[in-house]
Structure formats: structure tokens, C-alpha cells
């Protein structure tokens, strides 16, 4: 141990050394690879033989690839359905749960699916929807004799079934965030509005919901980003099938890259996916940026 302040440069070197491990890992395994990936997307490459530069041709090929187009449409469907169900559902549940007895119990119940993996969720719901021994066909069979739907192998039922699993898992996220948002709303404006004679619906539309705006932005952004990236549930429940009919962009990227070894094409899909995700979160990143400037 030494008394007194250390020489200034020693601290300077140390200050960079402290950042170095984090920077090396992130730059080496995430940032540099991202740039490489963008570069790969301009090549035709099977992963083994020599890559051939094709410019933007991988991107142009999107327009004539029916598998890609279906996958793109499916992805948009996932995004819209995510906004419609887990997001709005989460808000409704959060509002309903406020002031309810047993609210904590219900909260935990809706939250638990969130702590388990997509793989487990997919397995659980694949069993629910299974044709011969599944619970759903079992329940429906009690009412309709001989009822047997092949949920996971017919289009578009398979996507709807998977969305069910997705909603089951994702509702908790938006519920928790909306509950956190609701708990920060001061009581005074709400009470004032009720005293002024507004009913509960009017109070919600004109007072509560506007005050929830920051949380709403976050929930919507995150929900869109997450649904654009949907992979695990589909991979587990249908493998994107039958005949690639239920693929989303993330699944198509995986299949093109690691089963069919169209690495350049796969890279192009991942670039497109990244652009979509960034576009959706631009507003949000801008917000964060503003906050950070205040922060310093």
C-alpha cells in the first residue's frame, strides 16, 4: 500500500485497461462481425467454396423468392398480432388487476410463463395443440363428437396456434410494465376528473392513458422488436413448416444459412431484419439519447 495519490498516467492506463475486456468481447464477437455480415450480404457464398461478389443481387432476389415473400408477410402478421393481443391485453389486465383482491396471485400467474424459455413454451403448446392426444382437441371433442383438427400442420391454423403460445408467454411483459407505469401516476388528476363527473372510461381515455404514454411507447417498441425477431417458438413448434409455410424472417434466415448454406442470402435477410428492427426503435433510441445528454 502506498500513501498519496498515484501518478496520473498510471491511472490513465488503468482507466483504459478497465474498459478493455468489455470492449474486446463486444467488438470482437458482436460489432466487427456485424460489419462483416453486411459485407457477406453482397456475396454469393456456400460457406466452403470461394465467395462471388454479386452486389445487391441478394436483396433484389427477395422480390422474386416466394418463400421470402411468405416469410415477410408472416412476420408482419406476427407484429400486428403482437400489438393486438399481448400489448392491448397486457394493458387491460393491468387495469383490471388494480384494486382487485388476489391481484398478486393473478399477477404471478400471468408472469410465470415469462420466466420459462420459448423452447419450453413451444413444447407445452405443441402438446396442447397436438392432433391425436392434445388437450385442445380433447376438450373440443367432448362437445363435438370425433373432433380432430390438425392445428400445427394446416395453414393458417399453425400460425394462429403459435401466436396463442406467444400471447400466453408475452402478456406478462406488457402487464408488468403497464402496472409499473400505472403505479407512478399521481392520484390527484384522476380524482379531480372523477369529481368533475367523468366516468371511468372518460377518466381512462383523457387522464390515465395520456399519462401512461412513456410506458406505452416502450411496450409497443419492445413488442414490435421482439415479434420481428420471433424464432424459437416457430422453430420448436413447426420448424417453419409444413413446406416453409409458417416461417418468419428469423427462421428463413436460419434455414437459408445453416441448412441450405446460402450464406450470402442469409446474411442479406439478417441485414433486412436489422434495418426493420432499427427503424422500429429509432424513436425510442432518440428518446434515450436525449435522456443521456441530460444525464451527463
Amino acid at each position, binding site marked *: *500500500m502506498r500513501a498519496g*495519490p498515484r501518478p496520473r498516467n498510471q491511472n490513465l492506463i*488503468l*482507466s*483504459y485497461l*478497465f*474498459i478493455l475486456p*468489455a*470492449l474486446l*468481447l*463486444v*467488438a470482437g*464477437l*458482436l460489432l*466487427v*462481425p*456485424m460489419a*462483416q*455480415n453486411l459485407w457477406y450480404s453482397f456475396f454469393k457464398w456456400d460457406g466452403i467454396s470461394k465467395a462471388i461478389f454479386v452486389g445487391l443481387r441478394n436483396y433484389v432476389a427477395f422480390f422474386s423468392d416466394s418463400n421470402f415473400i411468405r416469410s415477410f408477410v408472416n412476420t408482419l402478421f406476427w407484429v400486428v398480432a403482437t400489438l393486438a393481443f399481448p400489448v392491448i391485453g397486457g394493458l387491460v*389486465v393491468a387495469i383490471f388487476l388494480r384494486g*382487485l383482491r388476489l391481484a398478486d396471485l*393473478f399477477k*404471478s*400467474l*400471468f*408472469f*410465470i*410463463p415469462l*420466466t420459462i*424459455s420459448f*423452447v*419450453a413454451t413451444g*413444447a*407445452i*403448446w*405443441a*402438446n*396442447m395443440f*397436438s392432433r391425436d*392426444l392434445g*388437450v385442445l382437441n*380433447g376438450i373440443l371433442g367432448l362437445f363435438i363428437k370425433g373432433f380432430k383438427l390438425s392445428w400445427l400442420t394446416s395453414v393458417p391454423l399453425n400460425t394462429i396456434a403459435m401466436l396463442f403460445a406467444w400471447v*400466453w408467454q408475452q402478456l406478462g*411483459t406488457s402487464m*408488468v*410494465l403497464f402496472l409499473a407505469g400505472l403505479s407512478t401516476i399521481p392520484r390527484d388528476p384522476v380524482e379531480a376528473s372523477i369529481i368533475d363527473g367523468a366516468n*371511468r372510461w372518460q377518466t381512462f381515455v383523457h387522464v390515465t392513458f395520456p399519462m401512461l404514454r412513456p*410506458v406505452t411507447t416502450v*411496450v409497443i417498441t419492445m413488442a414490435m422488436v421482439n415479434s420481428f425477431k420471433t*424464432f*424459437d417458438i416457430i422453430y*420448436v413448434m413447426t420448424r417453419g413448416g409444413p413446406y416453409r409455410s409458417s416461417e418468419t424472417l*428469423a427462421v428463413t434466415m*436460419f434455414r437459408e*444459412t445453416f441448412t441450405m448454406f446460402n450464406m450470402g442470402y*442469409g*446474411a442479406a435477410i439478417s441485414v433486412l431484419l*436489422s434495418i426493420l*428492427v*432499427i427503424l422500429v426503435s429509432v424513436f425510442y433510441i432518440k428518446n434515450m439519447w436525449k435522456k443521456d445528454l441530460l444525464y451527463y
Partner: protein
Amino acid sequence: MRQALARILTYLVIAALAILWLVPVLSTILVALKTPHDFVSQKFYELPPTFGLLGNLRNAMAQYGIQDHIVSSLIYSSVGAVVAILCASMAGYSIVRLKPRFNFALFLLIYSGTIFPFQMYLIPVYKLYNSVGLYDTRLGMILVYSAICIPFALFVYRGFYTTIPRETEEAAKLDGCGPLRMLFRIFIPNSKAPTAVVALFQATWIWNDLLFGMVLTRKESIRPVMVAVASMMGFGGSSVPMLMAVVLAISIPTIALFVFLRRYFISGMVMAKVDQ
């Protein structure tokens, strides 16, 4: 009167949803308890006459070596989270307190790693791992998981360290405490709450990952548990009870973490989403 009606309606909606949420859970437990034979021959709601859970787990161990995958995943979760926490707390401390030039730019650079979808770096990492011999190794998995966890961890520590009062540091500085000891004696021990959040979140994320395990590993002894479970899918019929028993086994750890550390989990989620 209308108020009471609205209240009853609220209860009904929530109760209906709760049942909908509970059915898959109960069904999973029920199927996991059945023997393959009972599962195929019984109705879906019938209780099993014999206890099949242990037999199902034994089958999963014998046929799929599920216990090895669980060990691998436990290693990735714990070591990956610890490496990320160490790297991020050092970097966060330096950025907030030592403030080298470009500290904010360096923060943004590292943090930007979290904005893009994983698919954006999957192919190059796969290629890199193949050429440097990290493909299909435990070290490779730990490195990639840590790298992915660092941006969020750094974000949390950088935010938290600005709230540690300067007085504590000044006193330590007068005693001749250098940056290294300052970090390990004062900053890290005083950040139990953010560390709990980061550890819980990142360990759970690594445990639940499928994509990187699938792309970067091949050998059974290296593959994380979610990849093994995904490969058990699709056989149907009598293999379902085994699958459901495994689903229970791999989900109980994260559910238990949630139950015990619920406070941290929720604050972490709010942090991760609101500030990510």
C-alpha cells in the same frame, strides 16, 4: 348497481384468463406424471394410475443424456453471467469515475451491441469460431454469451455507479486506495441490487437460449439444454410424457429464481425495457 356489475364483470374476465393461463401448466404437469403407456391409452383429463415422472426422467437421461446438457447449461449461465458482470462493472467504473477521454463514445460503442438482432452477427461468429477452434467448445459458448450480456450489464452499472456518494470514495482515496481496490472494495460490494438484477437476468437468458447453442455447437457434451429439448420435439405419441417431464425439469429452476427473487426480476424488467 352499475359499479357492482362492472366489478363482477372484471372478476369474470380475469378468472377466465387465469383459467386459460393455468390449463397448459396443469396439462404439462399431468402428462409429465403419466407413463408413456397411460398417456396413449388414457383420456387427456384422467389421472394416471401409476406414477411415471421418475421413469420419464430416467428415459430422458438414458436416451438423450439430458443431465449432461443441464450441467453444460448451468456452466454457461453461471460463468457467462459472472464474466459479463466483472467486465461490465470494471468498464462502468472507469467510464463513470476515471473518465478517460472518449468515455461516452466508448460506452455508446459497447452499448450499441444490444440494438441489433442476433442474426446480424450469427454467420461471422460461426465462421470465426470455425477458423480459430472455438466452434463446439465450452469456452466459445461462454465468450459469446458474456459478450451478449455485457452491453446491458454495462448500462446498469454505469447508471448505478453515478449514484454512489463521492464521500465514501474521498475517504478511501485519502487512505491511498487506488482504482483497482476502490472498485473491488467499495463499488462492487455496494452494488448488490444491480448485480442481483444483472445476474438473474443474464443467467436466465443464457439458460433459455436456443439459437447460439444450435449454431455454435455440435457435440452432445457441449450442447446447451434448450437445443437438446428442441431436438426431442416432433416424435409425438409415447415420447410426449418424457418431453413434458424434461420441460418441467428445465423450467423449474427459472420459475424458482423468479419466486425467490421476484422483486429483482420485476425491477430488472422495468430497467431493461424502459431504459434499454
